[in-house]
């Protein structure tokens, strides 16, 4: 059991990282970014290409990929400020569905069923915990995700830029009237999320390289984790992500192992409905 739970830290850390970005984007920009995993996945693919085609080392390739992730974020951010600055949350979210579908098409084209080998960035030694070897990389990932959550929350609460971002998330138009550069900040948040998503996805790259959609679908569990944080609390979202990863890892070898992908959602639905049991009405009054 403990061995499985610790093994779950690998996907758990990825979900946690993505979940923090989802909450950040929802809070700041009013969009549930269903394409986040795909963005990270597409950027991570460029690192594969750097290794394969240009013979770059793992480190430089990863750096290129992160930059690429930020660039994808910038492009999408510009798209959002150009056309959807005043759109509803639902409409923006629907746009990310279209983005997701588009990126999957591009990603499929790039990977094209071929197998790529990606040197493991986190191929460091394993740490022995309760008699189980845990790769140091996944420990770093989990800790990094939680630190990211705490760091972003502290940043938003204590810095001037954080205050500007919060103002923008509450009232974009009013924030604009207060000379806050809403467009620039929006694009910056998209770029940041793209970069973080790329790092998160690269952690699992060595194990999944032939098909693109699974990379894009990582976001689904991160969305579940973000939901556990009520799309508000990044720390709960990060912890939720880790727990979901562990849950999958526990279920995998069991008799319902073939339903591993489904189990977290059954749990998330039950938890959410319980938490929201008093939300009888759509509006407060």
């Amino acid at each position: 059991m403990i061995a499985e739970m610790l093994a779950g830290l690998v996907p758990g850390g990825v979900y946690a990282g993505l979940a923090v970005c989802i909450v950040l984007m929802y809070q700041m920009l009013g969009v549930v970014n269903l394409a986040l995993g795909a963005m990270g996945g597409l950027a991570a693919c460029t690192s594969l290409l750097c290794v394969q085609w240009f013979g770059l080392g793992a480190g430089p390739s990863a750096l290129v990929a992160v930059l690429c992730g930020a660039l994808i974020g910038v492009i999408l951010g510009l798209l959002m400020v150009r056309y959807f600055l005043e759109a509803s949350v639902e409409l923006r979210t629907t746009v990310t569905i279209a983005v997701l579908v588009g990126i999957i098409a591009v990603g499929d084209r790039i990977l094209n069923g071929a197998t790529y080998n990606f040197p493991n960035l986190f191929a460091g030694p394993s740490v022995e915990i309760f008699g189980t070897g845990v790769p140091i990389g996944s420990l770093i990932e989990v800790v990094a995700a939680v630190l990211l959550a705490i760091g972003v929350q502290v940043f938003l609460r204590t810095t001037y830029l954080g205050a500007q971002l919060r103002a923008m998330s509450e009232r974009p138009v009013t924030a604009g009237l207060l000379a806050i550069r809403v467009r620039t900040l929006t694009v910056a948040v998209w770029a940041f999320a793209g970069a973080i998503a790329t790092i998160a996805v690269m952690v699992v790259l060595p194990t999944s390289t032939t098909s693109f959609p699974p990379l894009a679908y990582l976001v689904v569990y991160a969305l579940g984790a973000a939901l556990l944080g009520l799309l508000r609390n990044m720390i709960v979202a990060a912890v939720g992500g880790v727990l979901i990863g562990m849950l999958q890892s526990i279920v995998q070898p069991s008799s319902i192992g073939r339903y591993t992908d489904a189990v977290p959602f059954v749990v998330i639905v039950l938890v959410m409905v319980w938490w929201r049991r008093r939300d009888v009405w759509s509006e407060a009054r």
Partner: protein
Amino acid sequence: MSGLKRASGTPLSAMLVVAVVIIAAGFALSSYWQYVGAIGAAEAIFGLSIGVVYGQAGMLSLCQPAIGAIGAWTVAYLSGEMGWVPLPWSLFIGAIIAVPIGLAAGMPALRLRRVNLAIVTLGVVIVIYTVAQAGQVAGSQESAYVKTPTWNLAGYMGLYLLGWLSFALLAGLTIVLRRSRWGLSWLAIARSERAAAAMGVSVTKAKLTAFAVAAFVAAWAGGLLVAGFGSADPSNFDPVVVLTLFALAVMMGAGYWEGALALGLFSAISSALLEQWGLTPDLGTALFAIGAITVLGKPDAAFSVMIRRQVAKLSSRRRRAADDEPPALRTFSPLAAKVPATGPADDPGRPLALAISNLTVNFGAVRALDDVSLTVPYGEVVGLVGPNGAGKSTLVDATTGFLAAYSGTVQVDGAQIDALPAYKRARIVRRTFQQDRTIGELTAEGYLRLGAAPGTTAKQIREIIEFVGCSNTATPLHSLDVRLRRLLMIGACLTGRPKAILVDEPAAGLSAEESIDLAARLVEIPERFGCGLLVIEHDMELVRLLCTSLVVLDFGKVIASGPTAEVLARADVAAAYLGDDVAAETALQEIAVEETSGRNAPAAVTSSQKAGEPHGR
């Protein structure tokens, strides 16, 4: 959500022309294109199912096409593996089996909304896809092979006919449902769940019926795919496919049948063309993504919405000449109004229309209502006044069942209703809201029909529309002015034939003349419709004209009650409005001056009320 808006209907002739063209086209097409057309029909039906849940009921649920898997497995099992159920029947059985699954998928929607619901329903998509891939459910294995129906027709004409007749049937079903109470209740919850419940609509039932109908429709489409592809291929329910259908539905405006039709044709034809041109489907997907983003970037650019707008423009041009003038505003003379305190003289033994006793409501540490008691006799208009934050709307919420907890009792017509949920209370006590919560897509007739008590005739509804002074019965409510929409909100209360009606700030935002017109109509309600009326209002002129008695709330407590003129003359009432003793004294002086000059006292309260507004908490 603008992309999926809806309206009353399309002419039958237009639908018949489309049906004839599609069927006739089938005979002219090659076998390949007949097959493509049949798959398009299945996708169009998926569009219909999304149109019901998202387009009509306004729930951001992504899982409808995935529920089609239930239909696919059923058809594959019954018509393939078992082989003994002929195809149209297995489609129907699959659709029926999907209903409980749809209900289960809809349960989270009772508490989760908007993007939360989107994430959870995306989870449902993943769950179904996982089950499909696991291949353990009967019918989900590739071995369950269904022979494509031919019915002795050339090529794939049998499949083509099956697909498009299914579409016609299910589109007809959604059109009929749209006009039924179910369909009206879907539109109502999309607009406002509270307003829907206040009209007697069970929000739970409305949501679940939408999910059930959508599941039925989607499962039919899933079954059709099996009839075309031969087996229930999990890739048909891949999350990307499901999400693409959803985004397409938003693009095309699948809340209308023509949007769903466009979805099916576009999706099938574009992928077939790409295949014929030797291009891989991912290029088509990428093109679709660009198209979807372009369409979503323009408000109301969904295909079906644009079509409807053009049609509406043409028909309004034709109709304009016949448009009649709105009826003139009524005037109201206080002398002609009922003299205060005639009371329930006609039947002293009759219970009160509304009796609230010892009502106490706490919001955390704040006591919003403190031991409030008031009564509204039949045939009377009682006013409830007080500064902002005094607890007036909280009282309405508690009385009509919108608060989770309160202490005290509410009796309507002598019956205690505290245990009833809001939509059941609406059978005997109705309310309006301060904000406009009418349903913009409906006409006055449809809107009033939604709130009507069982057995209400069309004639009665027309009479109420006339009573509130609306002459424009064919226009959707969103193109009427605020005044008419407010009056129709009251009219919708009347169609429910309640014992008591609570009207929350009906004159807010109306001009002086319009307020008078409103008063002239409101004052007739108790006698004409046999009920008691509680009016919350800040406009003291209106209160003075309208109410036989008055209850004043301040900080959640009743500080005065009794005949209107008496209450308005009291110094503490003026003080509550002004919030400051000095101001109260000024008001008293004003009253004294006006009394000596022979005018009514309450006018002073009216003039000083505005100065007192900042007192509101």
